[in-house]
């Protein structure tokens, strides 16, 4: 009874982190500083693991802290840091208002190992499988593709109302039309998750989630854990009935620490005050651990692994031939590197000020599904912006210094002369040349008082300003050909300073 505050503490920490992280994804007017956003997303387990594997020290530090925390305190990560976990808890809370939820103890399913093995087997070929189920990225997609558009619509409705009354106090925000592929996948995933929550609580976290499974190996031997005092327990079973991870076997008074996420709900439910969270020695840990029921599992692991491996065969196809359809943002190094690291969490998509970063649907095949690409028909990469690199938690987009970003070539402009307005209509345009920030677009005399564009490859960085600005439809007269491996462009010619032009007499 003394530890009643633990659940409250867990709820408070979880809410603070959840609200903060949601704000990172929902901030549609760049109110929150980028470094703050970057730090907020940097504590996620699997993204940090990927980032750490690229040799990034800070991410390695995050990994060590998360592992030590789990070893010491159990899977508090799943309760207080994982946004998808917190989202499930919130869902449960809402469902409970309408429906009495009762859980019961179930033997641990070995399916989680099957999923982990499947993900592990596909990893050398594709991140696609991991990305579909990685919890933080799932949350990012729900926030970016389902919640944020709703927030923007609400903002714009208010702005419209204010505008009607002659006030410009609320700034309307342009939102690009939804991408149904992305929205569809996200809706399907979220719906399945809600159904799982209604039926089995946090079953996703203990069967599907790879982060959960990895952490379960560590929490199995965690020092602090939930324990049932057999002396005080009256065997009422309320703890098990309220355990959303279904890990309390109240009959034998044991808690499966590998599945327990230390939500502390059981503690507050226990009428006898028999449940506590305390340090456990080795002997107590051995006693308390539930023995997994192995009867149904081996076959299931085999089935899941083999079925999913076969199903995922098309995904394993090499991506380089597909990469030509979609450029990766500056800082990615190459499309292949990018696809090897991006978990498609959409943090970059949410902070991109121009909206040029859009989630791919099938542009890069299954492997690259939901991973962002540069959608130059929608917009172009702002020359003085490095926002995506500031927030990427996996290192798929490294933060480049601005002067480096400004010479990083991610694609190259290709001019299709016969389609150009200047050639086809013999009228002036040069929208592309006006937008080009490096002046890679030179102008050639195309006739008296007419100029046509010409691309200087050495200066082009593939920012897409020309493609975006080109008024020719349906196929634009200038398009960016994405590069797989990014290159360094020649810095723009800064010229010599022009002397002051003092006016002695007006020429009119």
């Amino acid at each position, binding site marked *: 009874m003394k530890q009643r505050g633990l659940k409250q503490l867990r709820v408070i920490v979880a809410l603070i982190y959840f609200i903060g992280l949601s704000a990172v994804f929902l901030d549609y007017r760049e109110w929150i500083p980028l470094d703050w956003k970057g730090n907020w997303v940097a504590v996620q387990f699997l993204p940090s693991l990927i980032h750490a594997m690229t040799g990034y020290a800070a991410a390695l530090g995050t990994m060590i802290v998360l592992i030590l925390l789990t070893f010491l305190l159990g899977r508090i990560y799943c309760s207080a840091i994982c946004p998808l976990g917190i989202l499930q808890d919130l869902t449960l809370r809402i469902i409970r208002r309408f429906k009495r939820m009762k859980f019961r103890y179930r033997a641990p399913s070995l399916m989680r190992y099957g999923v982990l093995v499947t993900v592990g087997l596909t990893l050398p070929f594709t991140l696609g499988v991991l990305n579909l189920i990685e919890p933080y990225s799932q949350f990012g997609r729900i926030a970016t593709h389902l919640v944020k558009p709703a927030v923007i619509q609400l903002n714009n409705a208010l702005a419209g109302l204010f505008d*009607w009354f002659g006030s410009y106090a609320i700034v309307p925000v342009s939102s690009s039309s939804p991408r149904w592929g992305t929205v569809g996948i996200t809706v399907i995933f979220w719906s399945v998750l809600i159904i799982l929550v209604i039926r089995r609580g946090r079953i996703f976290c203990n069967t599907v989630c790879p982060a959960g499974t990895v952490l379960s190996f560590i929490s199995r031997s965690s020092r602090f854990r939930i324990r049932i005092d057999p002396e005080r327990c009256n065997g009422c079973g309320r703890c098990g009935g309220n355990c959303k991870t279904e890990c309390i076997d109240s009959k034998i008074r044991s808690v499966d620490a590998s599945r327990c996420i230390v939500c502390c709900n059981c503690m507050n439910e226990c009428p006898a005050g028999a449940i506590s969270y305390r340090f456990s020695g080795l002997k107590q840990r051995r006693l308390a651990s539930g023995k997994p029921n192995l009867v149904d599992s081996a076959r299931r692991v085999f089935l899941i692994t083999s079925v999913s491996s076969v199903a995922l065969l098309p995904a394993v196809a090499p991506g380089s031939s597909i990469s030509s359809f979609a450029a990766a943002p500056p800082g990615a190094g190459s499309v292949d590197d990018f696809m090897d690291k991006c978990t498609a969490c959409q943090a970059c998509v949410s902070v991109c000020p121009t909206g040029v970063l859009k989630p791919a649907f099938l542009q890069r095949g299954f492997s690259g599904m939901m991973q962002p690409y540069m959608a130059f028909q929608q917009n172009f990469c702002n*020359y003085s912006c490095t926002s995506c690199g500031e927030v990427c938690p996996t290192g798929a987009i490294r933060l480049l210094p601005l002067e480096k970003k400004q010479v990083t070539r991610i694609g190259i402009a290709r001019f299709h002369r016969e389609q150009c*307005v200047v050639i086809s*209509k013999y009228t002036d345009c*040069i929208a592309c040349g006006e937008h080009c920030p490096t002046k890679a677009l030179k102008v050639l005399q195309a006739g008296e008082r007419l100029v046509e564009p010409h691309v200087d490859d050495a200066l082009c960085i593939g920012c897409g300003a020309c493609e975006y600005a080109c008024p020719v439809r349906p196929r634009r007269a200038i398009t960016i050909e994405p590069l797989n491996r990014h290159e360094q462009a020649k810095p723009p010619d800064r010229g010599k300073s022009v*002397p002051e032009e003092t006016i002695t007499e007006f020429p*009119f």
Partner: protein
Amino acid sequence: MQRREFITKSIVGGLGLMTGLTLKPGQLLLAKDSQGLVDLAAISGGEPEVMFRAAIDAMGGMKRFVKGNQKVLVKPNIGWDAPPERAANTHPSLVMEIIKSCYEAGAKEVFVFDNPCDEWTRSYKNSGIEAAAKEAGATVVSGKNESYYHEVELPRAKSLKKAKVHELVLNSDVFINVPILKNHRFGGQITIAMKNLMGVVWDRDYWHANDLHQCIADFADHFKPHLNIVDAYRIIRTNGPQGISVNDTALMKAQLISPDIVSVDTAATKLFGLDPASVSYITKGHSNKTGTMDLDSINIKRMKL
């Protein structure tokens, strides 16, 4: 209120197209200009805000253009995410001073917006114009939202038969156009007041794809600003209209003011060192009678600080 006003205006415009939308106080004033008022003020040798004060006084003061309780739109060039020293956007000190003088003349509210080429929040911020305008008390409005733009027909147009125009242009009492003089790499080689109006429409693609010069002339003919203030304090000489570095700019320390958009573009082109007759949209503006290229026929006040 404004939207309702707009709708009413549109209906009126639909019935008696030319009178409803295009006959604005500025044109009435133009008729009076022959009676000794200055048609164009050219000034050089000072800071933007100092030159503006002297020039607007020479024009007869801001009260000539802005009456008490009027709603004023100040439309600078905020096209690019570039700092003031790159001269890709109108000088913020000039914008600030114009807004102040509008309020001194009795304006009810002054609005500032542009539809930038670069990302709009960065352009507003890094140009220094958003902060300057707010400091002077203006309401800074987004130009990057389609819901603010309303389709209007341009009955006299040759190419641009209709355009989606920002509601502030449609329902402000006074429209002050504040371009910056810059080199532009299109065939005209220069962007000033008429070209600056591209920033008040939503669909610029149409202009680019359908005889740009004609569209510029068509639009200026239907939406003549009441006053044009050309910032030639620092101008872009090369790599316009955004430039790469300060080296693309030259310090000219000049300013031109006129209610006649064609005259002011003609004078500015000469100041830049080009022949106005070689700039197609200016000659079209002259033959449309949007304004005059004949600078000898107008009353010009030249000043040096």
